[in-house]
Structures are given as C-alpha cells and as structure tokens.
C-alpha cells in the first residue's frame, strides 16, 4: 500500500491534479482511496489531498513518515507536509513562492531556509520551476499537470495510461498544451 500527498494553495489546481492521479491509479488496476482537506475559505488557505493505493486500502488518510511521494505546488507547503515523507520517499516541489497573508501583511518573514530544510529532510528532492515553465508554455494553469509529469517519471506505471487519462480529463481544446506540459515534467532533469 502506497501514499501520495498533493499539497498547495487554494486555487492552484491541487484537487484537479488529485482527481487525475486517482484515475491513473484506477486504470493501472489499483484499489484507490482519496481524501481532501481544505481550509475554511474558498481561496488562499492551504489545501492537501491524499491518495492511497495498492491491492487493498483501508484508511484514506496519510500517516507520519509513511508517504511515498509528496508533490508540493508551493515551497512552503512542501515543508509544511515534510513530516509525512517516508525515509527514501520522493519530494517534488514547485520552485515557486506564494506568500501567505501573515507574510504579505508584514507580520512575519517568509523563511529564507525553506530550500535548505527541504533538502535536509528529504533524500530525493526534485525542485522544478513548474510555474515558470507553464507560463512560458502559454498557460500557468498547466502547472499541476507538469508536476504530475515529474511524478509519473518516478512511478512504475505505463506512460500511455497517464496520457490517456489526461486526454480524457482536460477540456478538449487544451489537450495538446497539457500533454506538452506533462512531457516537460516527465523529462525534467535537475
């Protein structure tokens, strides 16, 4: 039984990415359970989705130091969930800063050592400027599919399955753009 956590900020496409991932795992023949937690308001709070998969899954919730993969859509959100990561688990982090309100309003500083801590507490870290790449590709909203592409390169699931699910899930007019974003993530080398 394996666990994947997707974490980010409300509005970044975390839940969409987790739906896509659940479909891929179902198509790959696994049992899947998914849970979501989002803050009180519609936007701006932290969001986390957990997907558990395997032959038989009981609890839909993650456990500390027992998560195989974490995808973080924002650096601080990666660090916020790092205690869930298993020894040897993979951490995929969007090299992107979204200041939380206490930082933006000047009450506290955005920590300077986020990256250092991400390295310190994960042995397999991929830091990718996904938002920048997605913006260059022409749509910032493909950031999530790009990050899913990085995960796909680390998992032992047939690439065709990923591509078919993307084709099925995204709006028809943005299929090509999303497949390009997926490929960028899939082929990313640090």
């Amino acid at each position: 039984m394996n666990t994947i956590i997707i974490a980010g900020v409300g509005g970044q496409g975390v839940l969409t990415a987790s739906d896509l991932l659940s479909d891929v795992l179902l198509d790959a023949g696994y049992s899947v359970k998914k849970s979501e937690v989002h803050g009180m308001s519609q936007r701006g709070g932290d969001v986390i989705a957990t997907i558990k998969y395997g032959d038989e899954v009981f609890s839909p919730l993650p456990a500390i130091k027992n998560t195989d993969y974490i995808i973080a859509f924002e650096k601080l959100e990666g660090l916020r969930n790092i205690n869930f990561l298993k020894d040897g688990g993979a951490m995929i982090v969007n090299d992107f800063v979204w200041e939380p309100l206490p930082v933006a309003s000047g009450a506290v500083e955005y920590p300077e050592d986020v990256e250092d801590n991400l390295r310190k507490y994960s042995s397999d870290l991929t830091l990718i400027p996904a938002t920048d790449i997605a913006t260059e590709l022409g749509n910032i909203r493909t950031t999530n599919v790009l990050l899913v592409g990085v995960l796909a390169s680390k998992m032992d699931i047939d690439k065709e399955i990923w591509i078919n699910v993307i084709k099925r899930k995204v709006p028809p007019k943005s299929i090509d753009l999303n497949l390009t974003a997926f490929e960028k993530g899939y082929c990313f080398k640090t």
Partner: protein
Amino acid sequence: MKRELLSGNEAIARGAYEAGITFASAYPGTPSTEILENVVRYKEDIHCQWGSNEKTAFEEAMGATFTGARVLVAMKHVGLNVAADPLFSSSYLGAEGGFIIVSADDPGMHSSQNEQDNRNYAIAAKIPVLEPSDSQEAKDFVVEGIKISEKFNTPVMLRSSTRVSHSRSAVETGERETPPEIHYEKDFQKTMLLPVIARKKHIIVEERQKKIKEFSDTFKYNYIVEGKTRIGIIASGIAFQNGREVFKDDWFLKVAMPYPFPEELYKKFAEKVDKIYVLEENDPIMENFARLITPDKEIIGKDFFPLTGEMTEDVILETLGKKDLTPEFDINSIPKRPPSLCPGCPHTATFHNLNLQKVTVTGDIGCYTLGGLPPLNAMDTTIDMGASITAMLGMEKSMEKAGKKLKQAAVIGDSTFFHSGITGLLDLIYNGSKGTVIILDNSITAMTGHQDNPGTGKTLMGDDAPVVDILKLVKDGLGIEHSFEIDGYDVKGIRALLREELKREKLSVIVVKRVCALLFKKPNWSPTIVDPEKCIKCNLCLKLGCPAITSKDDKAFIVSSLCTGCSVCIQVCPHDAMHHSDEDGMHIKDTSLVDFFKGGK
C-alpha cells in the same frame, strides 16, 4: 453494475436515488453540503430543495413523509441542534415511506465550532443510527436505512463524518427501486402529536426500540472479522478503516449500527477475545454498551484513546505507544497559511471600518467570520448561526442595566440572516434595542461554496424564484425606520453611515450589498496598480488583509493576477498612491450591484 470512485456525499446522493427517495431537503453546511448538490442530478425523480435553515428543511421532509414519500434530509452536526425539535417529534410520528436523517459530523473541527457526537441524538430521540466507513457503505446504508425505516416505522439517522463525506472510494452502483405510491388520507391519530396521542406513541417507540435491537444482531452490516490473536477491536465509521491499518491480525467487530447496539453479536465476539479496544470518534457510545453487557471484560476505550479530534492511524499508534509522532521538522516554526477574505471580497471595507472605529462586534457564521482574524481584527464573538444579533441585545441590555454603554454592532451575512437572524431582529425591535445590525448581503451562501438561498432568485433545482429584498423586509416589513442600503465597495460611505448609526440612540440596520467576488468570471479585469513615487509605505492598505496586496522594495505592491480592481484600497490610501491601471478591461466595481448571474455563475 458499474464501479465509480465517489465521495461519501456523492454516494449518499446516489443511495437516495437507488432507494427510491422522492423528496430531499437540506441547509448547506460543511461537510454535508455536496449531498443535496448531487441529489439534484436526479431531479427528474427526486424533488430537492434548500430550506432556509435545518429546522425548516427537516419539517419539510416530515411533511413529505405524511404523503407516503421516501425522504432524506441532510445537515452538518450542529445543524441538527437547530432541527432538534422536529427530530424528537419525528421519532414518535414514524415514517411510513422511509425517512433518512443525514448528520455529517466533524471530528477534528475542520470547519465547525465544536465536535459534538450526534449518535447521542439518535439515542436521545430513540431512533437507530447507521455509521458508514467508506463510500460504498454510505450509498448502501441509505438503501438499507430506508428498509429499516419502513420495516420499523422509524426515522433512521445516517451519521457521516468529514472523512467519510470528503473521501473518495469505489462504489458499485445499482438500479433505482420503485418508490411507494404518494397518497394522503386524513388520520390525525397518525399525524398529530397531542398529549393524548403522544402518550400512546411513546409506548410504541419503546417497543419499537426492542425490536430494532433484536434486528441489529442480524443486520448483515454488523459483522465479525476473524483474527489470529486473542485481541478484539470494536470499531465503527472511519475509525474502522483506520484501525484496520493498525490491528492487522486481530479480531474486529465491525459495527454499522452503534445504536441499538448488537448485543448478542457482541457477546459472540467477546467470547473469542481476552482484551477489547474500542475505536470510535468522539464519545464512548459503543464502549459504554459493551461495558454494560460484559462488566468483567478488559475493555480499553476513552480512558485510553482521546475523546477529542480524529481517531487516525497515527493517533491509534501513538496512544498504543507504538509510534513517536514528535516531528523531525517543527512546522510551527514556519508561517501558517490561514484562510482569508478573497481579493475583491465585498466584506473587507466594512470590517476595515469597524476595526478603525473600534466597534464591539458580535459576529456570526460565514466567510465573514474571517473578518475577526488579523489584520482586520473586527469581530469579538462567534456563537452559532444567528447569534450576532441576539448576543448584541444581551450585551446591550446587561450594560444598560449597569449604566454603561458599548459602541456595538452585529454583523451577519444574507444566508445566515435568512437562517435565523430574522427572529433575533424581532427581539431587538420588541425589546427596544439601540444597536446597529449590519447585514453583509453578498447574495449567495458563499462559505459552503455558493448555494442559492431566498435572496438569489434561483432554487436548488435551477428554477426561478422570487428575490427577497432584505432592505424592504426590515424597513417596510418590520418597520425599522433607520434602515439603509450601501455598496460594499463604498469605503467612505460605509464609514460615514457607521459613524452616524453607531451614535444614534435607535435601532438601525445597514444592508451592505455587493455580490460575492468569486461569482464573477475574470475575463479581462484591469488591476489596480501602485505608484511607487507616491507610496510612503504607511501600510494602511496592508491592513485590509487583501491577498492581492503585498510589499516589494519597501513599497506596497499589488499582485495583478489576483486583483479584481475593486477599488477598496484606492479609497483607503491616504496618499493617492493607488489607481486603476489604464489597460483595457473592466473592474469588478464596474459591474452592477446584484445583476451577477449573467456575469457567470
């Protein structure tokens, strides 16, 4: 037979369809909201509607049971407090056509003011309660619940929880059962709870509970999972799934119906084991039944496991001393990301002014409760739905008696005002309040994700409905002379009006009107920009708590991708350093006050 990955709430909706339910009602509340939002997919077969509150929704469902319909009513756990009055009556009245009451509890308080365990209500009202542990059971228990309800002529509670309602797992869907015939024949012995009738009904209820208790022993969803040890686990709901991750070789008594508790089945289970752990979220319901049945057995429950929060795999392991949860990295050392009012939120200007004018604000439940957090800091109290108005009256009269006075206002949203604010306002009128009531009318039930209400002009099923005009209601209907309507983006207007009304020695109502910023699509907003020459970094704009405003190079800076051009910060800036950018496009403020559905809901 089809397998789909459904959330617990989607599965409950599917269950309503398959069970042949023809009437469903609810008031939105996390984590229950999506149930009715999904029942509406079956609106050809099921009449579904939002009530103004949980009590009205519940009573409407009861009305439908009088016509023989199979019905479902859904609410969050605290919603059942509001509907507790009809709940107790419904137990006596029974349900010919099957009656499911969904209570979505929130252990861990992800989005609630408390974490009460509503299985206690089922026991108090003497109705059976079913606890699903995944989406498949969530669907099946609606179908089974309707059967139990009809067999024993009783309402049945379905207790979901945040983790069941908001997690997804595979569900095998089935066909819809044929609903019973809708009919009505007058028989007041069945439908009127006069004392003379209710006395007879109470006896029937007690007899009924004995029969359901026998049934609980044979109910197939209460079952024993054989183990290899002499340790047994009694578990229900999501705690069962979490417990299976921990106790891999032990016996389980999987309880779907914690009340009435399956006594004979439990006895069989207890014979197989020497030591019993009870895994249930919040209160020791099953534990207490087990202790009564086998007082000499070693039972480990809430004297050991926490009464508060969720019963997760980690919590179980830590309590057992099998896992150290001391984090390697201290996440309290990094900034939190609290939820905040959105960019362009029409509530911001009001809270900014309340904060500046140092008003004592009794608050309410909605997105706007976030106005109590820094940097707005403009709320003093939150109790429950509607309490902003009534708590203000209590404070006012108590101070008045002591010869003192506070500068006071009550803040409540449109949906909450319809829910239970109107009756409180009657109390203010009746008891001669001199307070100020601010109704933040964003013309939608926003916090739970935009549900329609009596002020939006649409029903749950998408039909047109009359729009209740709040200003007319309070001014012409209730006769409150000093009633006003003002635009939520008019910072200076709100400031002046507040100053005037807070001074006034008479009751006044200010309807701050402006639709929720999230209801507009953003085709081409032209954002506000900061003139760095004029900005002296006084930080006044940052005190709005707008997520689009931050600072850069020691000047205020606006994140253009977030900004809606609402103009609130432009009005707040004392140095004329902010202005609309000249790019083509529109500002959210340019759109009309209420004509938003065309704007793109």
